[in-house]
C-alpha cells in the first residue's frame, strides 16, 4: 500500500527529525515558497548552525487553474529542509530519505540535473539541482550562496520536496486530486486531495484572477510596506545590545512576506504594468535586504552576553 499524503509527510518528518532537525509547523503567513519562511530566510543568515524541517503550503496565485488542471495548483505543499552547515554526506542523506518513503533506488532512476535557484525579491540565490525520479522532478536541492544580498557563511543546504508530485508518484495516480490524503480505515474510506483542497483551489483562483480588488490590494501593499519601513527606520542600530535584542524584526519580516504575497496577487490580477514590475520587485527586495542586514546585527547583539564576560573571540565576532 503506497503512502497516503499525510503518511508521506509523517515519514519525511520522522526521517529528518532523526537527523537532528527541528520539526517546525508551517508558517502562518502566506508565502510563495518555503524558502521565504523566517525559519529559512532568517536562519540561514549569520554563523549559527541550524537544522529544521517543515511542511509549507506555498501560494502562487498565477499558477491557479480553478481546480481543473490535474497538475497545477495555486497552493502546493512543500517539505522544506535546511541543514546549516551542509554536511559532506548530504546527498546520501537525501537518498536515504527517499528510501524511507518507500522508493527502492535499485528499481528507480535518480538523476541530479543542474538547476540553480534564484529569488530576486529575496536577494537570494544558490547552486544546485532538480532531482529527477524516473523523469519526474521531485526535489529542488540548493546550496545557498546568498540571501538578503549577503554572502552566506557557513553554506546551508536546502532541500525542497514537492509533496503532491511525490505522493501522486507513489500512489500512481495521474491527477493530484486523486491522491489519498489519509489511509482508509475499516469502514471509513480515505479522503482524497480533492475532498480536502478542491474548493480552496477553485475559490482562490476565482479571487486571484477575477475578484480581488486591485485598489485594495495596492492599498494593503503600501500599508505593509510603510509599516516595514517604519520599523526598519526605528531599528536601534547604534544602541545597547539589550535594546537591539528586543526589537521586533520578526514582525518587520512578516510585513515583507505580506508585501511579497500582495505583489503576487496583483501580478496574477494583471495589475502590474511593464514599468512598475521591476520597480515593485525592487521595493520588496529592499525591505527583505533591510531586514536581513538588521537581523545579522541583532544576532551579534544576541550572542553578546555582557561587557564583563566577553571573551576575545566574541569581540572578534562583533568587530566583523
Amino acid at each position: 500500500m503506497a503512502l497516503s499524503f499525510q503518511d508521506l509527510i509523517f515519514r519525511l518528518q520522522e526521517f529528518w527529525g532523526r537527523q537532528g532537525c527541528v520539526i517546525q509547523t508551517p508558517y502562518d503567513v502566506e508565502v510563495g515558497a518555503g524558502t521565504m519562511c523566517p525559519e529559512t530566510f532568517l536562519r540561514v543568515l549569520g554563523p549559527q548552525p541550524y537544522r529544521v524541517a517543515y511542511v509549507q503550503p506555498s501560494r502562487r496565485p498565477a499558477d491557479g487553474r480553478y481546480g481543473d488542471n490535474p497538475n497545477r495548483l495555486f497552493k502546493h505543499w512543500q517539505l522544506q529542509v535546511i541543514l546549516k552547515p551542509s554536511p559532506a554526506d548530504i546527498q546520501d542523506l537525501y537518498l536515504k530519505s527517499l528510501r524511507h518513503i518507500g522508493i527502492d533506488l535499485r528499481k528507480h532512476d535518480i538523476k541530479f540535473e543542474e538547476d540553480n535557484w534564484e529569488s530576486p525579491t529575496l536577494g537570494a540565490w544558490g547552486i544546485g539541482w532538480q532531482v529527477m525520479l524516473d523523469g519526474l522532478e521531485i526535489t529542488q536541492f540548493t546550496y545557498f550562496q546568498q540571501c538578503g544580498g549577503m554572502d552566506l557563511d557557513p553554506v546551508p543546504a536546502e532541500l525542497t520536496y514537492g509533496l503532491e508530485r511525490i505522493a501522486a508518484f507513489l500512489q500512481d495516480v495521474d491527477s493530484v486530486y486523486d491522491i489519498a490524503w489519509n489511509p482508509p480505515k475499516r469502514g471509513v474510506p480515505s479522503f482524497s486531495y480533492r475532498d480536502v483542497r478542491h474548493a480552496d483551489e477553485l475559490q482562490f483562483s476565482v479571487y486571484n484572477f477575477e475578484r480581488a480588488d486591485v485598489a485594495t490590494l495596492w492599498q494593503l501593499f503600501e500599508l505593509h510596506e510603510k509599516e516595514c519601513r517604519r520599523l526598519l527606520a526605528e531599528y536601534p542600530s547604534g544602541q545597547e545590545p539589550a535594546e537591539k535584542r528586543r526589537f521586533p524584526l520578526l514582525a518587520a519580516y512578516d510585513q515583507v512576506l505580506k508585501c511579497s504575497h500582495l505583489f503576487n496577487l496583483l501580478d496574477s490580477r494583471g495589475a502590474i504594468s511593464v514599468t512598475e514590475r521591476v520597480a515593485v520587485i525592487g521595493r520588496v527586495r529592499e525591505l527583505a535586504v533591510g531586514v536581513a542586514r538588521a537581523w545579522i546585527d541583532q544576532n551579534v547583539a544576541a550572542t553578546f552576553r555582557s561587557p564583563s564576560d566577553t571573551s576575545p573571540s566574541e569581540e572578534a565576532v562583533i568587530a566583523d
Partner: protein
Amino acid sequence: MPTSEFLLEIGTEEIPDWMIEPALASLKLQLAQAFLLYHKSFMDALNGIRLDATPRRLVACVPQLPSKEPDSEEVTVGPPRKAPQQAVDGFARKLGVTASKLRVQTTGKGEYWVLAKRKKGHTAIQILSLELPHVITAIKFPKTMYWTGKNGPRFIRPIRSLLALYGGRVVPFSIAGVKSAAYTFGHRVLGKPRIKVTGFQQFLEELKNNGVVLKASERREKILAEAARLLAAAQPEGYGTLRENPGLLNTLVYLTEFPTADMGQFDPAYLELPEEVLVTVMQHHQKYLSVSDAAGKLAPRFIFVMNLDGDSSGAIRHGNERVLRARFNDARFFWETDQKTPLRDRLPMLEHVTFQSQLGSYRQKTERNVALVRRLAAFVSQAPVEHAARAAELAKCDLTTELVKEFTELQGVVGGLYARAQGEPAEVADAIYDHYKPESMEECSPRTPAGALVALADKLDTLAGCFSIGLKPSGSSDPFALRRAAQGVVKILADHNLHAPLPELIAAAQPSGEAAGQLLEFFLDRLRYYLREVRGFRYDEVNAVLAVGAQDVPDAIARCEAVRQVRPTSNFEPLSAAFKRVQNILRKAGGVGQFPGEPDAALLEAGAEAELDGQARRVFEETKESRDYEMVLRRTAELRPAVDTFFDKVLVMAEDERVRRNRLTFLAWLLRAFTRVADFSEIVVS
C-alpha cells in the same frame, strides 16, 4: 629518466553535463601551466595524457610522468683567477662557503673562480602535491560555488573525494578538508562507495565492476546501440528510427555513469497536437530521444536513458510514461485554453509584457515592427507587404499564451501554429512561425519572403533600440543576444539574396545619435565573421572584397566566391603583387587621390605603355557593367603579362614631369578601374 603513471580523479557531486568536456580541457591546460615551472620532460609527458569524465568524476592519467627532474648545477661566477686571495675569500664568504669549495672555470672571457652548487631536482610527488591543489581549483567553470564557507575553495560543485597516485603511491595534498587517497567510489546504486586503487588499468576494471562506464564514447555507443536494438525489436515492421539529436545525446552521456536506454510509448491520440510541441516536451523537458515512423512522422514512442543497469520491474518505464502523459496533458490543456482567445485579441495584453524597460512593452515593439516592415518592403520585393505587416502585428501575441509561458523555446512557432488554426492566411502563419529564425548559423532562414521581411524588421528594431540606449554587447556579455540578431540579419540577406544596403536597413530602423555608425561597424564585424566562419572564405579574400564595398551582403558573397574561384589560376597572385606595387608607387607619390581622371593618351609612350593602355581599356569596357565577377576577375587577370612588360620596360618616375604625372594618372586609373570586385593588394601572396 624512469617514469611512472600518474592518476588523478576528482570526485564531485554531479557536475552540469554541458560543463564537463570544457572542464577536462581546462584541467589539462592547468596541468600544463603548472608543469611549465619544472623540467621540460614533465610538459612533454603531458602529450600522453588521457582524460575521462562522468558527472561525478574528472579523471586524468599521464602514463609516463618522469619520477623526478634531473639534478642541475647552479654556477655563480666570482673574481678572475688572477684576483688577489682577499677578493677570492670575500666571494666565498658572501656565498657562505670556504674558498676551498671554489673551483676555476674557463668562460668566454677567461678563467674565473666559480662556485658550483648542485641543485636537486624536484620529485614528481613533490611537484604534484605542491601543484595539484591549485591546478584543481583553477579549473574554469562558467559558475562556481563555495561549500565550506567563504574562506574555502570555489568549484562547480562540492569536491567529495580525491584519488591521486603516482607510481601507485598517494600524492599527498588536500582541498577543502578532503585528503587525497588511494580510493575511488562506484556508481551510487550499482557500486561500492569505497574502492582501493593501485593503478589506471585496475581503476578502470574496478569502475567497470562497480557500475561506472568511464569513457564518454563508450557511454554514447551503449545508448545508441541499445536504442537501435529496441527500435529494431518489433520486426518485421520495426518501431521506426531514432531522430538524431547529438546535443541531447551528449547531455545524456554526461548525465549518467551507467546509461541504459529503454523505450516508452504514449497514446497516439496526443499526435493530434503539433509535432513541434510534442518534440519540445520530449527533448527539451524530458530529455527523451524521439522516434520517427516509416513515413518520417513522429511515432508515439520515445527512447529514455536511465542511470542504471536496467528496469526489470518496468517501474522506470511506467514512471517516465506517466510524466510524459502529464506533460502532454498540460500541453493539450494549454493548447485548448489558448484557443479561446485568438492571437488578434491578445494584442492589448502585450501592453503588460516588457520588452525592455526603456524600450517599452511588446505592444510598442509590435507597432515599431509593423512600421518597419512597411519601410523595409522595398528591399524584399517579392514579399506580400500586407501579409508581412499582418504577421508582424500578430508575431509577439503568442508571448501571452499559456503554451509559450510553459515552453518559452517555442515562441514564434506557437504563434505560427495558432495563426494557422485561427484561419490566418498561410503566408501570415508561416511568417510568424519563422520570425525568430535563424537562431544559429546552422538553422535555416525564414522560408518565405514575408517571413524574411518580418524577421529582418524584428531583429533590426531590437538592434537599433538597444544600441540607441547604450546596450551594446561587450566581451562575452550579450544579454539581448544582439550578435545573434545581427548575424541573423546577415544570413537572411544572404539566403534570400536581398541586395539591401546595410546603411539603409539601419537607417530604416531609426537608431538615435551615434548608434547608426556603431551598428554599421557591428554589422561589418558580423559580415566578416559570416564570410570567414560560415562560408569559409580566407581572411585575405574577405579583406580584399570588403575593402571595396561591404554594404550589399549577397554582392560581397558573390565577389568572395569569384576571388576564390580565380585565385588558383596562374595569373591571379602575380597580378595581386603588381597591384600592390602600383599602390606603393602611388602612395609614395602622394596617394591615389592626387591623380584623378584619365591619362592623356597623347602622352603615353608607344610600346609597353600604350599596349597596356589598349588592353586595359578593352577589358574595362567589356567588364564594367558585369555582375559576373568571376568573368571580370579572369579577364582582369589576363592583363598580367602586359602589366609585367610595362614594369619591365617603362620607368614610371620619368624625368619629364608631364609624362611622369600622366603615368601616375594612368596607374591610378588602372587601380580604380580594376578594384571593383576586390582590392587585390589585400591578397596575401603565397
